[in-house]
């Protein structure tokens, strides 16, 4: 995490001089201290997250593919003659085996990102989803994204 913060500082500055590096190190140190004190950050936890970076990249790629496919569906809906007649909005309860908070938040965010479904609320062991039509609701049942998240969550 400190390395990531420092890289972000360098990118935002755009220059590579001594004073930028010194102030960056000071800012990174203060932020790391803050994270360790208030969010329970530790090197061990960083290692756990770092081990999941490859899986996370595959997850993001899959997410982008899914978002593009669903967006095409959505554009078709909008450009059709009478959009209000073609949709069957419904709020459904979707059970999820994800246990950690991070996993559930990631699932909720990816559900919201895929057009056609929005997470209304996250409960204990389930998410409440507003689906715009039957097509997007069926896609919710066996999502590959959720399986990837379950795989990533193991041992966290």
């Amino acid at each position, binding site marked *: 995490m400190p390395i990531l913060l420092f890289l972000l500082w360098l990118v935002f500055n755009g220059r590579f001089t001594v004073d930028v590096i010194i102030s960056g190190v000071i800012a990174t140190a203060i932020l790391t201290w803050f994270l360790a004190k208030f969010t329970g950050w530790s090197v061990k936890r960083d290692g756990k997250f770092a081990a999941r970076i490859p899986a996370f990249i595959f997850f993001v790629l899959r997410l982008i593919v899914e978002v593009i496919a669903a967006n095409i569906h959505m554009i078709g809906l909008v450009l059709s003659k009478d959009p209000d007649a073609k949709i069957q*909005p419904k*709020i459904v309860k979707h059970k999820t085996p994800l246990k950690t908070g991070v996993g559930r938040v990631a699932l909720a965010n990816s559900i919201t*990102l895929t*057009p056609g479904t*929005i997470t*209304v*609320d996250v409960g204990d062991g389930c998410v*409440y989803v*507003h689906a715009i039509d039957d097509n997007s609701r069926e896609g919710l049942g066996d999502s590959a994204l959720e399986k990837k998240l379950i795989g990533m969550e193991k041992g966290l």
Partner: protein
Amino acid sequence: MEMFKLIAGAVFIAIGLFIFGVATLGLFRFSYVLNRVHVAAKCDSLAALFVCIGLMFFSTGAGAIIKLLVIAAFIWLTNPVASHLVCKIEVETNENLENECEVEELP
């Protein structure tokens, strides 16, 4: 090479702007909040990604490209949260929700 960069960038930005246009159109074509949020929020995230990719072809240097990637990442993180909050408030405050959509189970 310059020509290729120009064409690729222009194509990506054009796709992004088209999706933005469709999203704005959809905002007016649907009639209810929960249906409107679908198009308004989601198509925007994909369109912003496409515009960022298109701008990457025009930018010079690795710094600008990484900055654009960071912008796209933050949009993809914050956009779902914002639309989720709009939906949550609507579901919690609307007493006649059943008139607008089928409800299987409420939070």
